[in-house]
């Protein structure tokens, strides 16, 4: 049990990193999905290329590029800041694709109705379509968030003191290379279960407010 108290120190960092990156991605995904659906071919193409690159390069490679590449030459970055930027950028791309799926789920009639009521395109997007897209995107975003929680363990490689960081630390200090990692595994599983449960609840509540 003495291992558990050390390994559990990292839980708050894992949660903080996951939530910060998710927030970054939830906001960053909005301009990306709008650009992805732009009327200008050049904007559309650039957004698409950006999304493909962000998703096609492993998160560890992004963290290295930001932490060692940008962080040592251009501007100084803490490992936490580099991790949030890295995971945040990758999340923006995934969230943009999730929003895109959400947009197709909104009935075309709503665009037409807003148009008939004399609402501008921007006003329709902000007040009518946007809020509904956010709601229908929740299940996919939750699945992504649970994946992100586990992927965030990669940040330990650049020195972020999260759950697995403390497990490796404990195993080096005590020489026990099995039990601390098993505790870490248990903690990650324990963190994902309430997440899945909470999102099912939230989804059921918010889904009621989407027009069919």
């Amino acid at each position, binding site marked *: 049990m003495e291992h558990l108290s050390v390994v559990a120190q990292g839980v708050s960092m894992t949660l903080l990193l996951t939530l910060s990156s998710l927030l970054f991605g939830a906001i960053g995904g909005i301009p990306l999905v709008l650009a992805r659906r732009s009327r200008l071919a050049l904007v559309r193409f650039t957004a698409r290329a950006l999304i*493909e*690159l962000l*998703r*096609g*390069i*492993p*998160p*560890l*490679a*992004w963290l*290295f*590029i930001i932490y*060692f*590449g*940008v962080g*040592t*030459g*251009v501007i100084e970055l803490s490992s936490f800041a580099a991790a949030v930027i890295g995971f945040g950028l990758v999340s923006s791309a995934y969230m943009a694709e999730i929003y895109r799926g959400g947009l197709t789920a909104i009935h075309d009639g709503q665009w037409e109705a807003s148009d008939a009521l004399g609402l501008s395109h921007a006003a329709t997007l902000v007040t009518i379509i946007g809020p509904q897209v956010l709601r229908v995107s929740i299940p996919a975003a939750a699945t992504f968030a649970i994946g992100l929680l*586990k*992927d965030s*363990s*990669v940040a*330990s*490689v650049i020195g972020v003191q999260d759950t*697995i960081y403390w*497990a*490796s630390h404990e*195993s080096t200090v005590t020489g*026990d*290379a*099995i039990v601390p*990692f*098993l505790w*870490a*595994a248990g903690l*990650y*599983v324990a963190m*994902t*279960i309430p997440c899945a449960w909470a999102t099912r609840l939230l989804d059921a509540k918010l889904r009621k407010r989407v027009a069919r």
Partner: protein
Amino acid sequence: MTFFNDWVDYFPDLLGGLGVSLQLTLVTLLIGLPAGLVLALAAGSKKRVVRVVAIGVIEVGRGTPALVVLQLFYFGLPTAGMTLTSFVAASLALAFTTAAYTSEILRGGLQAVPSGEVEAAHALGMARGDILRFVVIPQGIRIAIPPLMGFAIMVFQATSLAYTIAMPELMSQAYSIGSITFRYLSILTLAGLMYALITIPASSLSNFVEYRLARHR
């Protein structure tokens, strides 16, 4: 211009690393996919014990980060008397995660096979094993191919984690060149682009296959 000079100079070294990453992906899939099929069949078994054990393995495998499994296999198993090389440890650890995830994909595919076909096979007097082998599995796998291809791309990306156990794959090659030359930005960017060079065409291929298979149903 130094950016491009670096790229020309160090491309061959990184190419070797990319080869190791691809090898690791292949071995992981060769072990993980059959194991995933076994888990998928076991999770749908009539025997309760088999079913519970299989679902337990799947949930633990999907709930635990691949990095934790990797560290456990590489650093943990030697203390239990099993010393593995970094390549073997990495392929076994990633194969475990792969098996857990692909079993769910395969289970979805197997369930998508119309139950009427299974009933028809029963009516024709086929044995249960034969029904699985000749009716359910071939069609189930076919349905599961596009998501499996998508997962294979994630496995390729996940091989970068083997950096942490000192395996000479693409990421560790790039990092070690970076730490010698201090040209982190250019080398790491090149490494990132080399990953993208594989993953982006592969995901277009997977979209194409999905489109083609959907046409025939």
